[in-house]
């Protein structure tokens, strides 16, 4: 897509300037303004030109002075110097000082100017396209678009994410597999002030220990056998942006020490190199393990743990998100139907009850797969219970995960159902087959429920 290009031509020879203006205006996408002196051009910079063609020998100010003033306020604005005579020394100095190009007024001027302006146009088009794509990504990763749900557990997560986007604090995300840790990391990045810089995800568990250092910090040519060229590491690629280290608990002790040093010093050295490279990267780490427990077990460095803890966000498992299950199921069903050209399908009450009764050890990822299959299996407008199939038993595994007393099991079960039904006591009592008063009596004994 082409965008209009605003060009300033600064030329004290009225005839030559007018000729350049008319020549560049042959492209209807160019908007050309002609100025006879340096000051005239400087006074109109608020019009925000995309490129300036500047005569070096102006009557009021030398070209280098005009360029210097332009660059003070608009350092990225391309300035092409068009000079009446060839002077290599001046040309080199001007190019060093930031001129986009330098050429002499001769028979080639027309073509060189035309080509240079076209290159700038292509660059501008690409920059605009890139910004538009980044905005699209930002929209895509808006909290409410990316993470569906209205349960109290999820509202807590949203509130922490809001805090994370306004700072560069390290964020540590924990949660069971399939709860959406990477999505949360992306949402934080694309809603933060670093959104226009890269988001680089890396799964620590997927990279062999001996390769992780070069992957993160890069390496110099000849650092090891096979290092035929210099390679930039993920830290450098993510400069100014966010580095997402997934499954951080799987990092080996040696690498933990190196990572700690980089975080503390905010600088790194490529493998096999000596150059110290400053780094400005926001870290978001994630793990499905309990990192504090890993520290206690001696598997994870305590000092690194505290460096990485930053703002901890714990993603609730789906079984604790109550009616979010239905909300998500509807979202996935609509999505799959649309994607596969199927008519919109609605869940029957029996199907909804069946979905609510399951514990989803694979969390949202598992629900998505279940709904996709159900949408395919259903022939009509409705998804019924027979279309829904689970691969594991629907027992809330965490309730039975540790041995405790019957009274505590009761409390755990009540807690689970209350969470599931958004603290609706009447519904919880009905589902558990007890009266409201029985539920209140049991709750009374445990104030923290």
């Amino acid at each position, binding site marked *: 897509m082409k965008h209009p290009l605003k060009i300033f031509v600064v030329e004290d*020879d009225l*005839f030559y300037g007018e*000729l350049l203006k*008319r*020549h560049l205006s042959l492209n209807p996408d160019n908007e050309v303004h002609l100025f006879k002196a340096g000051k005239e051009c400087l006074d109109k910079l608020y019009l925000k030109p995309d490129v300036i063609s500047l005569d070096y020998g102006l009557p009021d100010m030398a070209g280098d002075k005009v360029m210097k003033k332009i660059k003070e306020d608009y350092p990225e604005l391309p300035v092409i110097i068009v000079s009446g005579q060839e002077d290599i020394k001046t040309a080199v100095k001007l190019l060093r000082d930031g001129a986009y190009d330098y050429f002499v007024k001769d028979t080639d001027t027309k073509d060189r100017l035309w080509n240079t302006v076209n290159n700038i146009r292509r660059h501008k088009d690409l920059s605009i396209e890139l910004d538009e794509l980044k905005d699209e990504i930002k929209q895509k990763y808006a909290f409410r678009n990316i993470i569906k749900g209205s349960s109290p557990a999820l509202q807590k997560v949203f509130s922490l994410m809001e805090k994370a986007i306004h700072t560069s604090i390290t964020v540590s995300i924990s949660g069971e597999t399939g709860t959406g840790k990477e999505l949360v990391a992306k949402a934080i990045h694309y809603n933060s002030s670093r959104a226009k810089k890269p988001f680089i995800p890396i799964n620590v568990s997927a990279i062999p220990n001996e390769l992780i250092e070069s992957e993160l910090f890069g390496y110099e040519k000849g650092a090891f056998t096979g290092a035929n060229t210099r390679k930039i590491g993920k830290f450098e690629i993510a400069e100014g942006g966010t580095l997402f280290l997934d499954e951080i608990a799987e990092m080996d002790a040696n690498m933990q020490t190196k990572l700690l040093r980089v975080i503390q010093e905010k600088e790194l050295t490529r493998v096999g190199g000596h150059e110290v490279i400053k780094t400005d990267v926001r870290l978001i780490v994630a793990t499905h393990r309990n990192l504090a427990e890993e520290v206690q077990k001696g598997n994870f460095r305590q000092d690194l743990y505290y460096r990485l803890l930053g703002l901890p966000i714990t993603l609730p498992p789906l079984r604790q998100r109550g009616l979010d299950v239905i909300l998500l199921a509807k979202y996935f069903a609509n999505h799959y139907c649309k994607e596969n050209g199927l008519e919109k399908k609605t869940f029957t009450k029996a199907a909804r009850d069946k979905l609510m009764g399951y514990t989803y050890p694979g969390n949202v990822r598992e629900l998505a797969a279940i709904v996709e299959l159900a949408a395919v299996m259903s022939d009509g407008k409705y998804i019924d219970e027979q279309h829904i199939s689970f691969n594991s038993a629907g027992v809330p595994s965490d309730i039975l995960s540790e041995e405790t007393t019957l009274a505590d099991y009761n409390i755990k079960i009540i807690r689970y159902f209350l969470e599931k039904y958004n603290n609706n006591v009447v519904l919880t009592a009905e589902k558990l087959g007890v009266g409201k008063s029985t539920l209140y009596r049991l709750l009374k004994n445990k104030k923290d429920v």
Partner: protein
Amino acid sequence: MAAKNDRLALLRDYLDNDTQQIKEMLELFLKTLPSDLHELTVFCEKNDTENIRKTAHRIKSSVKLFGLNNVGDILQKMEFFNKKNTLPQQAKTLMKQVNQLMNQAFEQLREELASL
């Protein structure tokens, strides 16, 4: 005739052979350059090297666009004038040559303009 056509070759090239635009630009040249040359003549008479230098530099490129490289070369010489190395008579002599050559060129260009 070939020589006459060559005078406008670059102009045609710059303006994508658009006759109306060529005509307008030729008119602009015939309007502005005589007064520029007049200014330059006065500066030469006064041996005002600073203004000779500036004016010669300014109009040199336009003149060359019409294939008037001989005039362009003289203007380039004048561009490097300074008080130490320039004799008053030298400037006047060169200016006389410029005016002679340009008067011939103006005549040719006016004919070109009439035929457009």
